[in-house]
């Protein structure tokens, strides 16, 4: 996701409200960013709850609103929420798989004031697209993308890249050109949640990435005035961490389907957080006062090597979730950083997968698809279904 062009200041305000309306989804992508334990979240906020959240966020200065999920189209009140959001002055983004969309809804969204639609594709061909999403959705997505442009929305196409589709990057980009996308996000899988489980099958090799980057650069040049191509490499291959979410509690505010407020949509996995809920608290308190949003804000929480690092304001220590997953302590430096004592192990693991990639037996390992059944199995610590 592109970061908004804003300078930092001490008095942080949520500028980006991500409304995860539901974890229900007709697709089962094995790299989904939703929590692996999503089956635990039973309740969804009501229309009135969401309207209250939007009003509070807008009053605090939020301008960007993403309707996301799961699949936000599952919510029958989406049109009403868009209408209210637009009325409040938000720039409204619908982040969708396209499944559950039809022409009548595209028209209704336009009338409600929707500003932009982002559609995800899993690949540029029917077979792989439908395999990854475990859904016969390719043709429908293609039709919907055409309609989105016919109704004059700005359109972002999002394709998550991994070992199984990254070699098709040229076909993917040709497809986005055919569909007249305004922006293309080629987002390499980041290894949290579901994708972490499937890392052996998804992590691309260095050679694949090198080639993909060349093709992405070529299209960035070629399409310069027509289509903006955003290419994000997986940070496991880097030596300096990303400024994750532009900083903890800095501009991003995620509300999970049950009303839990999070500084990032992956933060649900971190231990020691209280997950303040919008049903019990207003956003002003959650953002300014809650222990969660202050926990890793700024730099005062840092330990070495971050604490004395002259780049600490630049990357803010990287990603807290990655630090937790790979080191067991969310306050450690992100192991992507060469200064982290866990950096070598991360790169060794990446190299190990790179060596095994292509091996028939290794590649035959089945993917764990993102669905409620597998989520329940994880929550109950049973073996997930992989077929």
């Amino acid at each position, binding site marked *: *996701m*592109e*970061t*908004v*062009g*804003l300078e930092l200041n001490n008095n942080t*305000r949520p*500028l980006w409200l991500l409304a995860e309306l539901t974890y229900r989804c007709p697709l089962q992508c094995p790299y989904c960013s939703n929590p692996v334990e999503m089956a635990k979240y039973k309740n969804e906020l009501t229309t009135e709850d969401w309207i209250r959240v939007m009003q509070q966020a807008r*009053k*605090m*200065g939020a*301008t*960007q609103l*993403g309707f996301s999920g799961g699949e936000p189209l599952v919510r029958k009140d989406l049109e009403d929420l868009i209408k209210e959001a637009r009325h409040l*002055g938000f*720039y409204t*983004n619908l982040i969708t798989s396209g499944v559950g969309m039809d022409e009548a809804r595209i028209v209704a969204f336009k009338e409600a004031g929707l*500003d*932009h639609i*982002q559609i995800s594709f899993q690949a540029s061909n029917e077979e792989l697209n439908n395999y990854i999403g475990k859904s016969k959705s390719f043709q429908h997505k293609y039709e919907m993308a055409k309609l989105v442009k016919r109704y*004059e*929305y*700005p359109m*972002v196409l999002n394709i998550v890249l991994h070992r199984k589709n990254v070699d098709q990057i040229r076909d993917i980009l040709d497809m986005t050109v055919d569909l007249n996308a*305004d*922006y293309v996000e080629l987002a390499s899988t980041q290894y949290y949640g579901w994708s972490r489980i499937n890392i052996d099958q998804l992590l691309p090799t260095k050679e694949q990435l090198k080639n993909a980057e060349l093709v992405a650069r070529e299209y960035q040049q070629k399409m310069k*005035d027509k289509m903006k191509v955003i290419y994000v490499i997986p940070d496991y291959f880097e030596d300096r961490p990303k400024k994750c979410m532009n900083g903890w509690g800095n501009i991003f505010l995620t509300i999970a389907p049950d009303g839990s407020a999070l500084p990032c949509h992956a933060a649900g996995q971190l231990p020691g957080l209280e997950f303040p809920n919008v049903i019990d608290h207003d956003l002003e308190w959650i953002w300014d006062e809650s222990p969660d949003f202050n926990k890793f804000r700024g730099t005062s929480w840092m330990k070495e090597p971050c604490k004395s690092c002259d780049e600490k304001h630049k990357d803010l220590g990287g990603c807290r979730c990655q630090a937790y997953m790979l080191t067991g302590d969310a306050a450690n430096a992100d192991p992507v950083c060469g200064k982290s004592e866990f950096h070598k192990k991360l790169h060794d693991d990446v190299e190990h997968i790179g060596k095994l990639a292509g091996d028939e037996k290794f590649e035959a390992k089945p993917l764990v698809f993102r669905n409620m059944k597998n989520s329940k199995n994880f929550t109950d610590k049973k073996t997930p279904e992989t077929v």
Partner: protein
Amino acid sequence: MAIELKKEDIIEIVPTFRFQWEEVQNCYVVLYPEGMVKLSQSAGEIMKRIDGKKSIIDMIGDISAAFGGADVEKDVLEFLETAYGNGWIRTK
């Protein structure tokens, strides 16, 4: 940039971008898919005069009059070139 802006061009804001006043930020902003640019005061003064009816030369006159006859031509043209390059505005 393929085509240069001319002073007699009538310009409008491209509909896929939104320009609006933000009370909390105390400035005008340009909004687009998943992003926002805050505008300086002078950029805001220029953008708010783009209405799809006035030519660039009229806008320059308008802004100059609003600021006590100041010579604003260079600043306005410079900003409009940037806005045009970013795809925010187009000629009619």
